[in-house]
């Protein structure tokens, strides 16, 4: 079965600095990859997804991620963060042959002024 590891539980960063949130996955079959954001007391919102094709995926709010099959990674990046980006970010993987989506433990991004 597939699994996801988010390498950083917390990432503090100053406003307007770049950020990278790291995600590695394991699976024996082809996968779909996702990043979700969760603001306090809210559900999950999809930031971006990789299904196939170009390995560089652009999402909402200026985020992008790159699928690296050889390193089994799907790191999330933003060139300049805002205070409003403070939230919990989850990487998730779904194998192409089942409906069980696996989530990482999450990375708390805190943007400081």
């Amino acid at each position, binding site marked *: 079965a597939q699994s*996801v590891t988010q390498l950083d539980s917390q990432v503090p960063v100053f406003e307007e600095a770049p950020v990278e949130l790291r995600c590695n996955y394991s699976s024996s079959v082809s996968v779909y990859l996702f990043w979700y954001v969760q603001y306090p007391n*809210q*559900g*999950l919102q999809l930031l971006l997804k990789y*299904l*196939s094709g170009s390995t560089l995926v652009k999402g909402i709010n200026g985020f992008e991620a790159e699928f690296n099959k050889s390193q089994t990674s799907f790191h999330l990046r933003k060139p300049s963060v805002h205070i409003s980006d403070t939230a919990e970010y989850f990487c998730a993987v779904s194998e192409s042959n089942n409906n*069980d989506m696996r*989530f990482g*433990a*999450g990375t708390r991004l805190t943007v400081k002024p």
Partner: protein
Amino acid sequence: DAGVTQSPTHLIKTRGQQVTLRCSPKSGHDTVSWYQQALGQGPQFIFQYYEEEERQRGNFPDRFSGHQFPNYSSELNVNALLLGDSALYLCASSLELAGPYNEQFFGPGTRLTVL
């Protein structure tokens, strides 16, 4: 479009009791999945319902059961509650025929506290 809605927002129960959580999917969606998110953890897949049947199940005991109604809404039932069942329960809906991957839209969740 109201999106995915869940009720109640919060719930407090005691050990051994039973609980029912409800979910209305996004308009036009026919598939509902349930997740448990313990404090400080990522969501864990409980099960998915499609055409009023449980299609796939995660690693959860039989105390967790569900139902999907003809209007695609769904219920999650948990029997014999344990302290460890305290969590945020998320419902997600999707459209089966949406394409190579049917994107899931999440509701705000129901916060269950077991005392």
